[in-house]
């Protein structure tokens, strides 16, 4: 049995934001795929939730010009059903494909994945390489924050308790770019990420004009490997440069030992997977 809790089920976003503004205790509940196991495992102590289930206006995928906007309550399965995502967000699509199992994908939302703040949240490295921004809404207004500035520490973000994450958006990758994600885990299905790497590389005539590298499960939050990105930008891609960039990215990791893998293994795989994805991007761009 789950511990007993209250669940408010608003029918509109406005009502939801009003309720959050009035209460210090209420926490949003979307697909509940994190919250139910956390409540059962006594890791979650909140006993008052606000359900986002009925807020259909937060479940959409919009395209306007080169901008893609996804509502917070869009499920991982919704993303997979949208085949244009394969080109509009290749790394995100790849992350959705290897996310949990069918049943969890049908319930899990992208907003919940971003907000749970876990370093192993699989959509986050992909979204970081897409340069995504999130919209945070409250009864008093709305603000847009680059996802890159969203996380401050393990499971901590700049989102205030009275705010809901309402959408995430990004620009469709340029034609001369490659966007990849790789999830290393014990199995292909239904497994928590040991090391997750996403890259977005754009190049012109063999010269890297922009680079984004994001790493998951190798630190308290998912993060961009800025120094490695800077190393690549403006230079002609080759094996040595890629090796050096992957080394630099691994240097920025601060992994922990846990039941799934040792810190040393995570460090080694952060290096080798970054090198692998950068090499793949370089070959595809040539």
């Amino acid at each position, binding site marked *: 049995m789950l*511990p007993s*809790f209250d669940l408010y089920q608003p029918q509109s976003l406005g009502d939801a934001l009003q309720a959050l503004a009035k209460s210090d205790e209420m926490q949003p509940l979307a697909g509940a795929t994190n919250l*139910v196991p956390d409540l059962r495992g006594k890791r979650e102590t909140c006993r008052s939730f606000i359900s986002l289930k009925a807020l259909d206006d937060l479940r959409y995928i919009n395209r306007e010009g080169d901008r893609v906007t996804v509502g917070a309550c869009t499920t991982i399965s919704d993303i997979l059903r949208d085949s244009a995502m394969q080109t509009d967000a290749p790394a995100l699509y790849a992350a959705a494909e290897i996310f*949990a199992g*069918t*049943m969890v994908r*049908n*319930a899990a939302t992208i907003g919940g994945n971003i907000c749970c703040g876990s370093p192993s949240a699989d959509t986050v490295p992909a979204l970081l390489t897409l340069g995504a921004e999130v919209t945070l809404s409250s009864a008093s207004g709305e603000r847009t924050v680059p996802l890159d500035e969203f996380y401050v520490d393990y499971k901590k973000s700049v989102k205030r308790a009275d705010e809901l994450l309402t959408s995430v958006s990004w620009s469709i990758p340029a034609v001369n770019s490659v966007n990849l994600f790789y999830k290393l885990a014990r199995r292909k299905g239904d497994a928590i990420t040991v090391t997750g790497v996403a890259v977005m590389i754009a190049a012109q005539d063999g010269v890297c004009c922009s680079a984004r590298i994001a790493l998951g499960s190798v630190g308290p939050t998912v993060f961009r490997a800025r120094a490695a990105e800077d190393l690549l930008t403006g230079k002609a891609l080759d094996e040595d440069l890629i090796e050096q960039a992957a080394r630099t990215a691994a240097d920025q990791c601060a992994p922990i030992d846990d039941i799934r893998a040792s810190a040393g293994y995570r460090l080694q795989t952060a290096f080798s997977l970054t090198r692998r994805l950068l090499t793949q991007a370089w070959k595809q761009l040539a």
Partner: protein
Amino acid sequence: MSKEKSINVNVNGKAVELVVPAHRTLLEALRHESFVEIKCGCEKGDCGACAVLLDGEPVDSCLTLAWHVDGCEVTTIKGIGQPGKADPLQEAFIETGAAQCGYCTPGMIVAAKSLLTDNQNPSLAEIKRALGGNLCRCTGYTRIFEAVLLAARKMREEGEAA
């Protein structure tokens, strides 16, 4: 104790009223109403034994709050096929010997049913992905995959005959 609410669901074509508090999962609520064909395994979304179709989509009933299914249609393994007229998946599971202890079977068939509704000619890789959230501790999966391939073939043949 939080307050209770009346939740109306249609389970396998039958109207059912659940009077439950917010923290009751669909798994607990339906098993309490004697739908014990829904199996309880891990209760944390890992094993898929509790899978049901919710408005046609498979979900883990152990992760689903009963309050969230008001007005929905739920299909359990008993809503797939009928006595005397088994679903092609059920026939195929019997013919290939895809069940040993059988505990995972209701969830396996529910997840496979949804796959075959969308895709009558799945590849082995597609079957593995569709059943990625269903654990089996007995069979080693090979016969389960064979059963789904066989059921797909049966369904295509039935479709052609019709």
